């Protein structure tokens, strides 16, 4: 379908692009005329040690999932996309005998082989206690990001960062993690002296850091809080409504299958998208973004007849 704007674009790229920009030979403007930088975010949640597909007699999800298949799918996407971030929202552990036999070793090794960029911690990732988690960490080449658990009084002190900034062709993507309240959900001895901190306060603080000093262009929250509770318990939707500056919440815990990301208005009016893709690696979430440089001076864009996003 050719829209009027497509037509305009063709015209502008064909004329303005070649003549005006060509004359400027300015890197900023030249960059603006290039294809936007693309980013493909791939994500999973609650994989629950589902190394192999559900067995063919495995009920509702029979024959679905499987990490060797997921690896091939990811590899295929990587071969087509320059910038890929592969993320997970926790509960990697527990659910099949692979976890009982090997304690999560194979899960972490396979995720490392698939080149996961980051994960957060789910409640089941504590199922073999802090020691059990610590034993498997050397098998993971990716970081576990968690902003609202304080491990300082545990053997895992200093092992986890609240966030990580990834840079793709100059675009800065801030990723941070949030975990669910452990008390009542995880046996006391399994989380020990790990302190749970308010997710809203920690998210607000972390986003300020990512949007401020870290100059992030996109902010992603890996959340194991859960998609939605009728009660007052914090969930991804409440988080989105209470904290500004998060572009995307990749959720987990509630094993929610979402056909499309859900936008929630944050306090500053801008939408935060929430996505969650079920569990057990039945699905691989895929969200594509494009990034265009913001123009700080009046250039070609402001002079044109096309609508332009407000320049800062």
């Amino acid at each position, binding site marked *: 379908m050719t829209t009027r*704007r497509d037509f*305009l*674009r063709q015209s*502008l790229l064909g004329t*303005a692009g070649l003549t005006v920009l060509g004359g400027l030979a300015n890197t900023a403007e030249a960059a603006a005329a290039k*294809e*936007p*930088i693309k*980013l493909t975010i791939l994500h999973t949640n609650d994989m629950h040690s589902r190394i*192999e*597909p559900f067995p063919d007699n495995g009920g509702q999800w029979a*024959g*679905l999932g*499987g*990490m*060797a*298949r997921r*690896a*091939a*799918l990811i590899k295929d996407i990587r071969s087509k996309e320059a910038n890929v971030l592969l993320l997970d929202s926790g509960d990697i552990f*527990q659910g*099949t*005998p692979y976890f*009982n036999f090997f304690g999560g070793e194979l899960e972490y090794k*396979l995720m490392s082989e*698939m080149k996961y960029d980051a994960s957060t911690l789910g409640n089941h990732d504590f*199922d073999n206690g802090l020691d059990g988690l610590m034993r498997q960490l050397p098998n993971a080449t990716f970081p576990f990001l968690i902003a609202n658990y304080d491990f300082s009084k545990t053997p895992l002190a200093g092992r986890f960062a609240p966030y990580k900034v990834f840079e793709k062709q*100059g675009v*800065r993507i801030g990723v941070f993690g949030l975990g669910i309240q452990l008390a*009542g959900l*995880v*046996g*006391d001895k399994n989380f020990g002296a790990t302190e749970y901190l308010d997710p809203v306060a920690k998210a607000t603080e972390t986003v300020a850091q990512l*949007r*401020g000093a870290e100059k992030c*262009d996109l902010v992603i929250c890996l959340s194991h809080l859960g998609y939605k509770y009728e009660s007052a318990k914090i969930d991804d939707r409440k988080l989105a409504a209470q904290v500004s*500056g998060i572009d995307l919440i990749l959720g987990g815990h509630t094993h929610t*299958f979402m*056909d499309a*990301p859900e936008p929630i208005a944050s306090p500053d009016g801008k939408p935060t*998208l929430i*996505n969650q*893709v*079920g569990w057990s*690696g039945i699905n*691989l*979430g*895929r*969200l*594509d*973004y*494009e*990034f*265009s440089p913001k123009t700080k001076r009046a250039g070609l*864009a402001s002079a*044109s007849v096309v609508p*332009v*996003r*407000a320049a*800062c």
Partner: protein
Amino acid sequence: MLQNSFRTALAALLVVVAVAPGCQRAAYAPTARFAPTTSQPVGKTQAEDPAVAAMIAPYHDKVTTQMQEVLGTAPMPLLKAQGESPLANFVADLQRARASQVLSEPVPLGVMTNGGLRASLSAGPVTLGSVFELMPFENELVVLDAPSAVVQQLFEYAANIKMAVSGATYAVTFDGLPKDIRIGNQVFDPNQDRTWPIAISDYLASGGDNMGFFKTIEPRHTNVLLRNAIADHIRSLTKAGQPVTAKVEGRVKQ
């Protein structure tokens, strides 16, 4: 910039959402341009990555060899369900028996919640794999010496969800409270000054599933994993020529 504006407009037609932050220090403005499917199924038509499949293979072989061991036979399925269920009765009963054997003393009560059991047992051969499915957690069988007041709290918790307690019967009042509690056929007196040993998982003993009333009690260890207790019990039934059975028998009266 120009192109981004155009793409934004185009993307709006595809029901996508622009998420550009406002006047922030960031240098780039993001625009969501989602593919028609944001949740891609990992199905049977997806080929496997051979390198990853090769990494899995040796682990797979170790697991399957052990999981296929047949422990016993169930003529009927042992289902898990809300309220009193065959599977929870089966497990809570064997917890009492095993704890009693390990500690060489009577254990009058046993507790297992529906949520603590992760899968029902199908009719037919019961394999080690099926025991793993129903009890995947590394939970230890422990014994709590609960004062009568805490036992009363246990029954209040149980009555609220009509959960059976092994070794006991009770009825539920119209407003969800326990009455006519009997432990080993003896009427339970919540004011009696004594403790009641309860065979339970360390998960529940430490307050899991909202059993916060147990948290102050120091558990006695059996050093037996609950899963092993279940597997061992089924093996011993088979050895004695007995099938794997359990039923709802009115431990909770309406």
